[in-house]
């Protein structure tokens, strides 16, 4: 308090002495990324303030699990910050529909982003974009380079090679072929189904067709990934049924497993934990030479509180977030959270660089269940978790799973009826 008064006193002296009449404004950012607090305070905010001395920025995160509830009540009470970190899809769409987020479609800097990047923060018809895309996460496989060298294995590019590699590791016996469990369920869907799936349903083409109702979850391109997942079961460690997500992370970073079905957000954690060299390969395609598709999932955006007192300053900040400069700071400070802007960003982390490079070789898509299709009950995303686990355990056939998901979706989603 005293410090602040001192700061104000100093600031007013400065104003008087220089004679600049510009009004200083303070912008507050709401976020669930409390892990990133130091990054914002030490790197991002100083970089912005250096260019815009008349705007002060404060980053005030809350706990991830509470964020949506805290934010909603703050917005209703009118005490929320000027800038709001946006969850992808329906959570933010609901805020926009309720009039809490401003339409940012006319922000010039929006042209820095592709349509896929923006899709997470648009109205269903794509008419209004209400958050600036910040980062995405990419799925693929991270592998233990030392283990591959020891066993003389090559990085697989096709599904045939992928299973040949797994067989070779299994036969050798010194490593668990693949570290993943089904206890927490979400990995099976996120790192399993939505990791390898886009190669089957051809990324955006299939995802859009599913939303439009032209394809069904019983179609072969949507059930085939379950058949592939069913083959994974034999390569996961003993007792994978009760293996949790942290278990899998530890098994891999301790060097006990050779391959880890991953999301790029693992990179910084793995860099700190693992003392062997890591590489990454993208989800294998069915036949050599097929177009590859990757899940490049939009995860974080930032928007403007419609009730802010400083709309101009907030827009200045958002325009800066959309700039390549921000992308470079953010992308390097958080390897694995990839900036979404179309201008390529030079990343320093080798693993992150390798993964982000797939964007040039493959078609990007997002997780199939996130947009629109998880709006009703039963929730398609949650159902997909269970279905992917059942596939890996062999508890149900791919066709049964497809039928079950299709029935659930059709029960509330009109285009699929």
């Amino acid at each position, binding site marked *: 308090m005293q410090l602040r008064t001192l700061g104000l006193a100093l600031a007013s002296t400065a104003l008087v002495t220089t004679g600049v009449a510009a009004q200083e404004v303070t912008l507050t950012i709401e976020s669930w990324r409390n892990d990133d607090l130091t990054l914002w305070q030490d790197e991002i905010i100083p970089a912005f303030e250096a260019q815009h001395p008349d705007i002060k920025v404060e980053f005030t995160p809350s706990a991830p699990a509470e964020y949506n509830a805290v934010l909603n009540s703050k917005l209703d009470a009118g005490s929320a910050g000027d800038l709001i970190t946006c969850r992808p899809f329906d959570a933010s769409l609901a805020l926009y529909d309720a009039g809490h987020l401003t339409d940012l479609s006319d922000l010039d800097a929006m042209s820095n982003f592709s349509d896929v990047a923006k899709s997470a923060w648009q109205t269903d018809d794509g008419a209004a974009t209400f958050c600036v895309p910040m980062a995405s996460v990419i799925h693929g496989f991270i592998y233990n380079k030392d283990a591959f060298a020891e066993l003389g294995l090559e990085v697989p590019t096709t599904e045939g090679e992928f299973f040949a590699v797994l067989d070779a590791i299994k036969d050798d016996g010194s490593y668990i072929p693949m570290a993943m469990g089904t206890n927490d369920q979400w990995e099976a869907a996120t790192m399993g189904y939505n990791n390898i799936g886009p190669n089957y349903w051809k990324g955006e083409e299939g995802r859009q067709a599913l939303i439009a109702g032209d394809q069904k979850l019983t179609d072969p391109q949507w059930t085939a990934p379950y058949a592939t997942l069913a083959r994974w079961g034999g390569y996961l460690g003993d007792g994978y049924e009760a293996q*949790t997500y942290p278990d899998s992370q530890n098994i891999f970073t301790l060097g006990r497993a050779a391959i880890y079905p991953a999301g790029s957000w693992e990179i910084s954690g793995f860099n700190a934990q693992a003392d062997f060299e890591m590489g990454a390969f993208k989800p294998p395609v069915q036949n050599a030479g097929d177009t590859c598709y990757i899940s490049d999932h939009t995860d974080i955006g930032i928007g403007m509180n419609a009730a802010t007192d400083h709309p101009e300053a907030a827009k200045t900040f958002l325009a800066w977030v959309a700039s390549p400069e921000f992308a470079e700071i953010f992308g390097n400070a958080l390897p694995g959270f990839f900036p979404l802007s179309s201008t390529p960003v030079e990343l320093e982390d080798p693993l992150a660089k390798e993964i982000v490079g797939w964007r040039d070789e493959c078609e990007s898509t997002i997780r199939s269940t996130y947009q629109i299709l998880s709006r009703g009950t039963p929730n398609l995303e949650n159902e997909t978790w269970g279905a992917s686990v059942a596939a890996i355990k062999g508890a149900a056939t791919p066709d049964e799973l497809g039928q079950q998901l299709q029935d659930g979706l059709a029960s509330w989603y009109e285009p699929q009826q």
Partner: protein
Amino acid sequence: MKRARIRWHIAVFLAPAVIVYSAVMIFPLFNTLRLALYTRVDRERVFVGLENFQTLFFDPIWAEQFWNALGNNFWFFIIHMLVQNPIGIALAAILSHPRLRFAALYRSAIFIPTILSFVIVGFAWKLILSPIWGIAPSMLDAIGLKSLFAPWLGKEEYALTTLALVSVWQFVGIPMMLIYAALLTIPEEILEAGEVDGITGMSAFWKIKLPLILPSIGIISILTFVGNFNAFDLIYAAQGALAGPDYSTDILGTFMYRTFFGFQLQLGDPHMGSAIAGAMFAIILLGVCIYLFAIQTRMRRYQL
């Protein structure tokens, strides 16, 4: 004639408890029941009567989850009744044996898990039973029974029973303490009188002590019933809100939580959530009524 004085002190002394209890228990309870009669249409709260309950019981998607959770809940309760309470009674009988040494030590050791947080119990048992780091597989290995080990918490057919047994481990101290206290109140003279008639040892337990502690067993059963049908914490701590694998450990509490507060991409639905809470309330109320009117009134009590 002297008018009866209004006895203000009764109201004054009752007031604090009544006000606090009404504010934090009665009002929320009825408000939750009221919430179950509404639904949300385009941001407006609309009164729909019993439609939510109709959805819950008759819509195939909801009904399947509800009956699954209810069935699991009954299984959870049955395990407690068949395992926790008999073991609790047996332990109390052993502890009350006059010649047992270190009885206080055993009593405390067995009771301690009861005061642990669910989160600690859930987490510790998850680690103990973990096929990767757990000590359960290596202990079984040491006695040559490794083949008996399975990733219990990850298998649909075992997970619920395993969790029920973990809960039994945690709470076996409660029936033990209550029965132990009941056993201590049995006067020596009665047992001695029995001895004179030739009733000793095991038959003294079955013929004299057990009939005398039956009312306590009744109370324990109803406490177990209420506790089990309100259970949530252990399942949530060990298996998460989705109560995996494949909803095999889903009980009414986790089902209600998932519906009310939402989960991952599923947005919360307070109205359906309240309907489930209402159903839970009705089930527990029914169970307690059956006990109070059908069982307790018929139970024979002995004047000691």
